[in-house]
């Protein structure tokens, strides 16, 4: 009497449409799911401190101007803070919108269009934001006129 062999679930004999590993897609969706939770946990800290420093401490929103930004970005810690905030929040948000598009846009062409617009916006914002953080000049000279502030050298 032979013992019947019971194969483990999904060990072949699965119709191609139901395969859990459809070739090159790999486990992208699982990685994306994990990324949302990891980046979310980090963003919680990054954003709450960002909101506290900018909107609660000191004069709150009334204290925000060019000099406030210059003061923050004079410190490399805030540059890295804002850079991390920019990248994690944009990737977290882009993936969230990607999931929402996949859920609600039923036509293939509509999904492709919306995601094309989304990814274009993401790349533009990430490149722009990164450049702004690293090329920021607290004492710019515009059309030969030097910016006047107590932290800038007198012209």
């Amino acid at each position, binding site marked *: 009497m032979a013992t019947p062999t019971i194969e483990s679930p999904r060990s072949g004999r699965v119709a191609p449409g139901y395969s859990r590993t459809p070739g090159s897609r790999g486990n992208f969706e699982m990685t994306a799911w994990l990324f949302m939770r990891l980046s979310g*946990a980090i963003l919680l800290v990054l*954003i709450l401190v960002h909101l506290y420093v900018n909107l*609660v401490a000191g004069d709150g*929103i009334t204290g925000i*101007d060019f000099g406030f930004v210059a003061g923050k970005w004079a410190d490399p810690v805030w540059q890295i803070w804002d850079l991390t905030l920019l990248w994690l929040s944009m990737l977290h948000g882009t993936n969230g*919108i990607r999931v929402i598009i996949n859920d609600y846009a039923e036509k293939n062409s509509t999904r492709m269009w919306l995601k094309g617009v989304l990814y274009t916006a993401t790349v533009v914002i990430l490149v722009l934001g990164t450049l*702004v953080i690293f090329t920021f000049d607290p004492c710019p000279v515009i059309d030969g006129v030097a910016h006047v502030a107590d932290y800038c050298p007198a012209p």
Partner: protein
Amino acid sequence: MPKTLTPAGTLYRGREGQWSWVAHRITGVVIFFFLLVHVLDTSLVRVSPEAYDAVIASYKNPIMGLGELGLVAAILFHAFNGVRVILVDFWKKGPRYHRQMLWAVVGLWAVVMIAFSIRHLSHVFGG
């Protein structure tokens, strides 16, 4: 006599689970679109100090001040409920206590929002 049947709608099971999911999506979309605008307005520091100060001045008027309150409300809900989602996914007892955790999220959100509203509105309305 043929009766017109309307679909029952797409409500799944409603209650805390689905409504928190809906709120998480809506707040996420709101935050994302603000984020796009926020990077653009901050980028004006590379145009000129005057351009940046002019746009930031518009964030200080009362109507925008109320908008900021709404934005912070969305961010805080998304953040606290995000912790709840992580606990539901990774904590063994998370799924069992997801309702209680939602009320904890709403309670914490209300407390922080009351404190923030007092602080922010006093800045915006010059208290």
